[in-house]
């Protein structure tokens, strides 16, 4: 029986060995207590560890100020916090039909006036529409860096320029991009927040993620609670990261995330990007000519390692089940991106999604293609 895990866009299953070792080391040492809740050495150990993790993340994203790295439990939490902290309910926001519900639902919840930039038939955004939707009350663009359905990367140079030219705030969902492609936040960027998750391509444990705050705009508190200092203040301390890090952080898992990001920094994000693109292009070249397979998206240029497709005569979940029965783990359905599927006309059948990680091999791709061919 095969054991081929191709659902890495949901979460990476195989992590660098150092991730589990670091989590184990931190817990089993009995030397890591609550950061920011005491001056004893065990508290300071945790404070130092979290600071190391911030520095490692800052290095990956080419950010100078590591204290602007905030840890949350995942990207969904980060997006909720960023949207509710920095955006005004009554002002207009531009987003796209390409977004995951972790962007859409917090926007539905918090913003009254939203415009949606549509996609071309091949999944690329209609970039000209951004200007079309601009209003005097437009405050921000909220956009994913890479699609979790198509694997297509958003043209961030265009987005940065559009926001800078029109004085708009930017919130980016980096769930799929971080750890797969280079994200350089030292370039000329607007006031923005870049949200990331830890458990996908950064190889951290589940329950880790965060956001990088790249603005001097004053944040509003979203959650409040213990901060370990300034206890007579009725509000959360207004400083980043403390205003967003209410209560005790998940230090044990942040240790694992640190190890995951160290692995990426050591390997080099550009090397990882190249490796993943070679593998996903190899898979694409094997699938594209199989009769009965329907591919939907543009495959030119650098991308993240995702292919979504359907097979004639099958619902997406039926075919994914066939693959799972032969030990090839993929994901079927809507992938929490309802507007993407409406645009593609696949809202009733969904798509089968293969998503790779650096731990997948060409042999696994060959084996999976063989099994797909058998059933098509």
């Amino acid at each position, binding site marked *: 029986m095969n054991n081929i895990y191709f659902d890495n866009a949901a979460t990476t299953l195989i992590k660098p060995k150092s991730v589990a070792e670091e989590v184990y080391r931190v817990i089993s040492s009995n030397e890591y207590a609550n*950061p*920011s809740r005491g001056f004893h050495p065990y508290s*300071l150990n945790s*404070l130092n560890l*979290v600071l190391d993790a911030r520095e490692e993340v800052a290095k990956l994203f080419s950010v100078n*100020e590591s*204290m602007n790295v905030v840890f949350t439990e995942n990207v969904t939490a980060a997006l909720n916090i960023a949207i509710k902290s920095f955006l005004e309910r009554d002002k207009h926001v531009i987003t796209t039909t390409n977004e995951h519900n972790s962007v859409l639902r917090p926007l539905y919840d918090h913003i009254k006036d939203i415009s949606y930039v549509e996609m071309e038939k091949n999944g690329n955004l209609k970039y000209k529409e951004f200007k079309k939707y601009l209003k005097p009350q437009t405050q921000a663009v909220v956009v994913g860096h890479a699609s979790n359905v198509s694997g297509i990367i958003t043209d961030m140079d265009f987005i940065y320029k559009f926001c800078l030219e029109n004085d708009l705030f930017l919130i980016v969902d980096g769930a799929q991009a971080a750890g797969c492609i280079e994200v350089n936040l030292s370039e000329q960027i607007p006031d923005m927040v870049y949200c990331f998750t830890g458990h996908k391509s950064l190889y951290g444990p589940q329950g880790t993620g965060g956001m990088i705050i790249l603005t001097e705009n004053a944040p509003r508190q979203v959650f409040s609670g213990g901060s*370990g*200092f*300034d206890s007579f203040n009725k509000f959360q301390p207004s400083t980043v990261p403390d205003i967003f890090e209410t209560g005790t952080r998940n230090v044990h898992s942040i240790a694992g995330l640190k190890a995951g990001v160290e692995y990426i920094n050591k390997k080099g994000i550009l090397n990882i990007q190249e490796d993943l693109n070679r593998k996903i292009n190899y898979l694409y070249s094997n699938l594209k000519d199989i009769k009965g397979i329907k591919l939907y998206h543009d495959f030119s240029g650098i991308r993240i390692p995702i292919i979504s497709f359907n097979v004639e005569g099958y619902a997406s979940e039926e075919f994914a089940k066939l693959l799972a029965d032969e030990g090839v783990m993929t994901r079927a359905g809507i992938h929490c991106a309802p507007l993407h599927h409406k645009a593609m006309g696949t809202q009733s059948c969904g798509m089968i999604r293969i998503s790779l990680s650096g731990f997948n091999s060409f042999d696994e791709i060959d084996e999976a293609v063989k099994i797909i061919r058998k059933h098509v």
Partner: protein
Amino acid sequence: MLKYITFKSSGHAMQANRAIDLDGVRLIPLPTKIDAGCGLCLKVEKNLDEVEKILQEKNIEYEIYE
């Protein structure tokens, strides 16, 4: 000379502590009498000018208390 340097958060205090390796400067719990900043501060008994220079170079915000 005895001064206390306070910071906006414990993380910033630790960041400052890592950047400074000078005689007469150490990280301590914030004295309760100083109602400012986070739970940690630097106790500075000498080299105050050098400490301030490093903090300014590193762009770490601080306040000085007697």
